[in-house]
């Protein structure tokens, strides 16, 4: 029990590490996912192919393999960055494929007639997209994007196993200090529960505010 009170700073570092990793990787995943989704619905064929290949490859890559390739492989390539940056890169790219699919299905839920009506009112492509289609699409993708980001927070545990400072990684330090391993894991589990519950609470609020009941 006192494993938490005695080692509050170790747990705190791990907890903050996970939060930080999740936040940066989420930002990267959202940006890349948005980019890839716009590639996948673009009128130009080569953009669509690029987006489709990106999604198909990353969705079917085990995340451990991706971490392995990025954290241990890229340095051989002559690219040396802090492990944390590599971890954000791997997590963000992996999750972007799932964000992309969520956004794309959101765009597809907007009825065709909405765009047609916008154009018949004389709106340009940019106006149609930003005023009519995207606001509706964003509203319907709040729940799937939320669950994708929760999955990201959970997946960030893998970074700890690749020796990035992170919540799961704290078990190594504490078990070396001889603390009861079961309690150690219980507090780690609680830490993850707090993070995932916080994300789901945020997305519940967002959905109440902006979500649409179709």
């Amino acid at each position: 029990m006192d494993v938490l009170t005695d080692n509050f700073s170790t747990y705190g570092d791990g907890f903050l590490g996970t939060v930080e990793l999740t936040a940066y990787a989420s930002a990267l995943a959202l940006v890349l996912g948005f980019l890839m989704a716009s590639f996948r619905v673009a009128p130009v064929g080569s953009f669509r192919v690029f987006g489709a290949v990106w999604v198909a490859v990353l969705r079917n890559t085990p995340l451990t393999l991706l971490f392995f390739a990025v954290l241990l492989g890229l340095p051989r390539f002559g690219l040396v960055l802090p492990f944390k940056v590599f971890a954000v890169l791997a997590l963000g790219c992996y999750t972007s494929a799932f964000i992309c699919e969520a956004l794309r299905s959101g765009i597809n839920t907007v009825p065709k007639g909405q765009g047609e009506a916008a154009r018949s009112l004389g709106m340009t492509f940019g106006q149609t997209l930003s005023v009519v289609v995207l606001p509706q699409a964003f509203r319907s993708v709040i729940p799937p994007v939320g669950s994708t980001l929760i999955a990201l927070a959970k997946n960030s545990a893998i970074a700890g196993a690749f020796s990035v400072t992170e919540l799961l990684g704290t078990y190594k330090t504490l078990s070396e200090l001889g603390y009861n391993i079961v309690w150690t894991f219980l507090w780690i589990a609680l830490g993850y529960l707090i993070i995932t519950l916080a994300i789901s609470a945020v997305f519940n609020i967002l959905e109440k505010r902006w979500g649409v009941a179709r």
Partner: protein
Amino acid sequence: MTTTAAEATALYDIPGPKTRRRHFLYGVLSTAVIVGLVAWILYLLFDTDQFTRTKWTPFEYKGIQELLLRGLGNTLKAFAIAAVLSLALGALLATGRLSEHRVVRWLATLVVEFFRAMPVLVMIFFVFVALKVQPLPALVAGLTLYNGSVLAEVFRSGVNSVERGQREAAYALGMRKTQVMSYVLVPQAVRAMLPAIISQLVVALKDTSLGYLITYEEFLHAGKLIASNLDYDLPFIPVVMVISPIYIGMCMLLSWFAYWVSKRQRRSPKTEAVDVAPAEPGTLLPGGVPPRAPAP
């Protein structure tokens, strides 16, 4: 190709000849950029000597090929065991969540919600480190707890999505609850949920690579052994280039299978209402035969 995508979205009109020419130009330009990017990566690979002979020789040796094959075999073994056990646990937990007894329902809900919220790796490490279990059982246990909980939700929503009339009709015929479940609801639910179940198995297959982190001798572990060999000048990138396509290929095959099943089901008469011809004297029972065109 351009027109089909244009028809499917609300974003833009079907392009006219002028726009099509413009899109063609964009296409050529972006293809050039992508090809340039690939060429740059290839240049970097050559520049850092990734294609030298020493780095690729290990794959010629029988011992190393066997090492890789054994790793692949271990990956598939862990996947097979975890898949079977997760399906069983999923069925058990779904039964619990659909139970009429409140205590059983709460207990099952608690288990499902807890294991869905935990990172798989934390569970695997817990079993491996705290309970001091061998790598394979630890990996399988972690995968089973997580995927079993997710599958339980899949099964439950599947059973709940079967039309209420089915259940009511079965009860009206005098079936007991177990009979209603096993003869009426579950067969229909499984058929509807099959694509979702296979997609979850893809997740399980991908997560077997977590075994690498607890020193289970699976495919990635075999790759790591080869990659850290100094005799071959640390062939890290070659190993990644050999292993990734195999991993991605396996998962894609399974994903594609899920897609194929869902596509096939959309036109399967078993998941859609069959047009039943009106009964005539002398015909067989309606339902099995495809509808016939009315006589002229």
